[in-house]
């Protein structure tokens, strides 16, 4: 079936090899099936059907998008199920491949394997009926267009079916030739095509157009590979770091006082305002702990990341931003910073792989350390990452770095000077003999004021990667939650060994009243109590026992049940010996758990959600009674009844807000059995994953800083650039909105620059929960009737989502762009409907720039009434059936993040 053989000749320039000529052969064949299910002349159609790939249909027009459409509007093509019967030419896939658009190719494949879409990839480049050669002097882009049209022409001749080539206007101009018979093929621009066949998608189209307007490399067809490479190169050169100043210049600058020598990061200087160095470029390769020389820049409005904004974009550490000065780093050389030249181990998680597994990107646990690139196999250097990340090398599966508060000096234990336990430093555990996984230990000593009691829990959280979640118990075996090497050796607090621990230390007076509580990471040397020093232990244990008796008495309401073994069918029961010392340990652990719970709750004081719910409901004229579960349920039922037919989204939002609020109900923290107001699981991290979570929550508090991890893996892996989605306004803040996107369960903040909010954003009414936005002066809004737009809770908006570029392990999603959605709004502005398509309903989604309000915000189009939003409902319905619980969990996670943003940036 191979009828001919051609050769593709290409040239490739690479850093290492220079210019090379690549020759690949290609066999042209006749047996490529058309893929139309009704066609009987293509023999291979049968095998195509057998392989389970979707087939085209002749009842609908066959739509052939060319590479300009696919490369720029793939998001539109993929997300809209109504676009069916698409034919993706191999030419397009190869053009994408030449530009390394792997993700787009994957999206195309996803469409072409989705049975509902009835779309296919057509191997036109190897088919004798459609293959064409590049003509002399013809550009590759033009040849590709010709190839796509030749494929379309073949389709129209092969089977009586309407064939439409979809292209973009600017590319269409390039097509100067005539294809003879191929003129039977209709060539339409994408917007013409959508207007004729799918008018409902025009909104989406214009949103994508706007979002990609400033990304010329999104559309691969307009540029030649050479131009494209130049464009990439130009972008890349912008990313490069400025070179360090020479030592002489630095010395001169320091002498003159124009430069400062400081540690990097947010630089605190006594007596002078702090210096903030924002952005990767300004940081200029400096890492945490380096000593650097900085030049203080003039304070300008354009300085990135500065300003006392409510929702801080870049970094949440800018509390007193207005007092800070911007600076750029000009030197972090080794002469200035001996620390930067030395190697130090850093713990991290391998996050991404490059170059077929040869390159890995490790993301350190410590957010101050930049991502580290690791060579794993010998492979070609990835040139475009060359500048961005420091090199590292792989040491061990677990690389450990810790911040340890040294409670006491670590003891020296050598053969010549064996370590003798000191009565003042006794840390011991009391466990049955032969116990392997010991996760708790206790210390007790007398101080001048009274007592110091400590509970030390194995520090598992630093060793455990998040992928491993729980221990699995099967009938005959057990898969440990954490590997044995950790559970039984490294983490287990065994006698005579030095271990890391998470400690709670209380200072007590002589009446066992707690005067001070301390939390933190410690390094513990443990006493092998049973063997080495029983007499030393005894006094401690006696003190401990006394203390515990007092403490237990204090929570007197403990209820005990005793069962009569005779009434049960159990014939043989060997009860554990009820030694008092076990109860003492138990009591100490309960005490520690309670202390940790209280502490965590004090740092996450998110008890405002009921208020938010009540406030939001009131804005729509509903009253919510939160006095009891029953009252709340009745209030919600009332809302459901009233809004069932008019606004299901609002019901959904109200319910989800209520669910969130329920999670924080104070009663959740209490332990009735132990009669404690706050209780959590903290003391058994080896056995219980929940405890590790608690450790992680406690850790940043103990370390004195607040860092949060966002879990939006799904979002990040699916969407590289941006995504337009429907959202609902969940909260209105003084300088922005919190928008909830139900489809992805994401809540995000949209910051509205102060200059656009009316009168410096004073138009905030606590009762009405509304935010008015004035459109920028340069937007021709006079025919809109009004220059302002009002957002209120439960308003439907269109948002543009993208993943933020941050140093975090999982960059949080940013909800950046809004346009208003028509649905269910009664007080829409009276706006000229025709304006719709020319104005674009999104803000410019440019990275790193603050979202500037563009004409988009006018959104007349969305305000037209009576538009159906069926797709939105179907998504919602699916969503509510499938993953309500999971989504709430996600929301909870993100919500925590938001709270921290809010409270710290002073948004409220």
């Amino acid at each position: 079936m191979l009828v001919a053989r051609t050769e593709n000749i290409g040239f490739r320039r690479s850093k290492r090899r220079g210019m090379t000529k690549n020759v690949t052969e290609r066999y042209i064949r006749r047996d490529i099936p058309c893929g139309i299910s009704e066609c009987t002349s293509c023999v291979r159609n049968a095998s195509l059907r057998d392989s389970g790939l979707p087939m085209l249909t002749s009842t609908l027009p066959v739509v052939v998008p060319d590479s300009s459409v696919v490369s720029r509007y793939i998001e539109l093509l993929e997300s809209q199920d109504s676009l069916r019967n698409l034919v993706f030419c191999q030419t397009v896939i190869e053009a994408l491949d030449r530009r390394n658009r792997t993700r787009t190719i994957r999206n195309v494949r996803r469409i072409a394997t989705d049975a509902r879409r009835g779309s296919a990839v057509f191997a036109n480049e190897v088919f004798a009926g459609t293959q064409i050669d590049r003509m002399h002097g013809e550009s590759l882009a033009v040849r590709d267009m010709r190839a796509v049209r030749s494929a379309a022409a073949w389709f129209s001749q092969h089977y009586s079916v309407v064939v439409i080539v979809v292209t973009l206007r600017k590319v269409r101009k390039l097509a100067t030739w005539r294809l003879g018979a191929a003129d039977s093929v209709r060539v339409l621009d994408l917007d013409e095509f959508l207007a004729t066949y799918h008018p409902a998608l025009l909104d989406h189209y214009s949103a994508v157009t706007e979002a990609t307007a400033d990304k010329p490399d999104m559309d691969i067809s307009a540029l030649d590979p050479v131009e494209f490479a130049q464009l990439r190169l130009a972008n890349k050169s912008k990313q490069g770091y400025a070179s360090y100043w020479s030592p002489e210049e630095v010395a001169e600058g320091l002498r003159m006082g124009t430069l400062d020598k400081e540690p990097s990061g947010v630089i605190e200087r006594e007596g002078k305002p702090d210096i903030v160095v924002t952005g990767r470029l300004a940081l200029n390769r400096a890492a945490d702990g380096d000593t650097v020389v900085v030049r203080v820049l003039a304070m300008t409005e354009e300085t990135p990341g500065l300003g006392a904004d409510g929702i801080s974009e870049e970094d949440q550490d800018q509390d007193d931003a207005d007092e800070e000065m911007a600076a750029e780093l000009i030197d972090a050389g080794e002469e200035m910073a001996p620390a930067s030249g030395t190697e130090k181990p850093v713990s991290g998680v391998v996050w991404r792989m490059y170059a077929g597994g040869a390159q890995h990107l490790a993301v350190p646990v410590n957010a101050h350390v930049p991502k580290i690139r690791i060579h794993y196999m010998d492979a070609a250097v990835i040139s475009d990452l060359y500048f961005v990340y420091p090199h590292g090398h792989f040491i061990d599966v677990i690389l450990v770095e810790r911040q340890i508060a040294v409670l006491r000096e670590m003891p020296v234990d050598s053969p010549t000077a064996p370590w003798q336990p000191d009565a003042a430093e006794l840390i011991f555990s009391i466990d049955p003999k032969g116990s392997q996984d010991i996760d708790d230990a206790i210390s007790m000593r007398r101080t001048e004021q009274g007592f110091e009691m400590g509970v030390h829990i194995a520090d598992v959280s630093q060793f455990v990667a998040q992928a491993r979640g729980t221990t699995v118990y099967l009938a005959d075996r057990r898969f440990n939650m954490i590997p044995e090497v950790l559970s039984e050796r490294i983490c287990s607090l065994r006698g005579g060994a030095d271990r890391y621990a998470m400690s709670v230390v209380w200072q007590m007076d002589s009446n066992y009243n707690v005067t001070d509580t301390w939390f933190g990471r410690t390094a513990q040397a443990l006493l092998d109590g049973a063997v080495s020093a029983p007499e030393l232990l005894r006094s401690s244990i006696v003190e401990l026992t006394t203390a515990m008796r007092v403490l237990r008495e204090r929570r007197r309401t403990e209820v005990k049940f005793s069962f009569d073994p005779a009434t049960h069918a159990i014939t043989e029961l060997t009860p554990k010996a009820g030694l008092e010392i076990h109860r003492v340990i138990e009591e100490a652990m309960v005490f520690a758990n309670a202390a940790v719970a209280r502490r965590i709750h004090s740092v996450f004081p998110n008890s405002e959600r009921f208020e938010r719910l009540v406030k939001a409901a009131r804005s729509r004229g509903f009253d919510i009674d939160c006095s009891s579960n029953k009252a709340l349920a009745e209030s919600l039922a009332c809302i459901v009844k009233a809004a069932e037919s008019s606004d299901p989204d609002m019901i959904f939002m109200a319910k989800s807000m209520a669910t969130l609020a329920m999670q924080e109900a104070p009663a959740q923290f209490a332990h009735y059995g132990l009669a404690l107001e706050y209780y959590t699981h903290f003391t058994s991290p080896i056995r219980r994953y929940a405890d590790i979570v608690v450790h992680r929550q406690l850790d940043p508090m103990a370390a004195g800083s607040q860092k949060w991890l966002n879990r939006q893996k799904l979002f990040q892996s699916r969407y590289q650039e941006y995504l337009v989605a429907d959202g609902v306004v969940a909260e209105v803040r003084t300088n922005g909105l919190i928008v909830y996107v139900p489809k992805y369960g994401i809540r995000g903040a949209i910051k509205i620059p102060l200059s656009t909010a009316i009168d410096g954003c004073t138009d905030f009414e606590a009762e009405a929960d509304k935010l008015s936005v004035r459109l920028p002066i340069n937007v021709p809004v006079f025919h809109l009737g009004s220059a302002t737009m009002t957002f209120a809770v439960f308003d439907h908006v269109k948002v543009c989502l993208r993943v933020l570029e941050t140093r975090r392990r999982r960059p949080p999603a940013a909800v950046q762009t809004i346009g208003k959605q028509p649905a269910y709004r009664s007080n829409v502005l009276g706006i000229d409907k025709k304006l719709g398509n020319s104005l674009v309903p999104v803000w410019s989604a440019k990275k790193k720039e603050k979202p500037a309000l563009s004409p988009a915000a006018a959104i007349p189009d969305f305000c037209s009434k009576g538009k159906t939003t069926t797709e939105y409902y179907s998504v919602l319905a699916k969503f509510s059936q499938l993953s309500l619980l999971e989504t709430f969990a996600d929301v909870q996670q993100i919500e925590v993040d938001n709270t921290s943003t809010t409270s710290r940036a002073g948004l409220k």
Partner: protein
Amino acid sequence: MSRQELLSPEGLRVDGRRANELRKISCRASVLDTADGSAYFEQGNTKVLVAVYGPREARQKGLVPHDKALVNVEFNVAPFSTSERRKRSKSDKRLLEVSAFVKQTFESVIQTHVYPRSQINIYIQLLQHDGGTLEACINAATLALVDAGISMTDYVCACTGGFIDETPVLDLNFVEESSIETPDLTVAILPRTGKVALLQMESRLRSDKLEDVMDLAVSGCKSIHKKLDQAVMAAATDLSEKLGH
């Protein structure tokens, strides 16, 4: 199609072949006048020239066994054979490996006992490289040995097989071969008896799939055998015409 897609869901490979198709093969015997036997062999874009000298008196008599001939293989890669022009040293381990495989294969097929105390030299020159070097070398050497009139028990036909996306594929080209995950199995068989003369694999393959891949490679060997046979017949016809028969 694309670099990531060695085998598309539609069943097409990067160069437009299906999984069980060989590349285009063309070959000719007696291309060099000075050599005792010679052959030129093309498989797709892989091009090999082989010259055979011998049997002739051994140079180093001490090394030659008294009852059979010594087979000596030298493999050379032209600097211009790849897209990047690079000169390889004679002691390059990859080259030595290929020549060792070829030598090993032919030692068992050439009837060396017919030529005691003599030496047979096989010089292989790779002119263009596009995957499947070893198979092309073995096929070309067979043709050249036949051309030289050296007695052999059978033809030796070699072919490669691979395994991409759960599918056995035949005759890997350079792109497919250089992908890390693709196992690359070279099989040389004696087509008359079906005996395996060489079985060599790079990378890893699940053991339960080995048989499938081998079956496919053996079927490839059989079609290569037909091509070689045609070339031998053509050369013989040519020769008989020249002799005026």
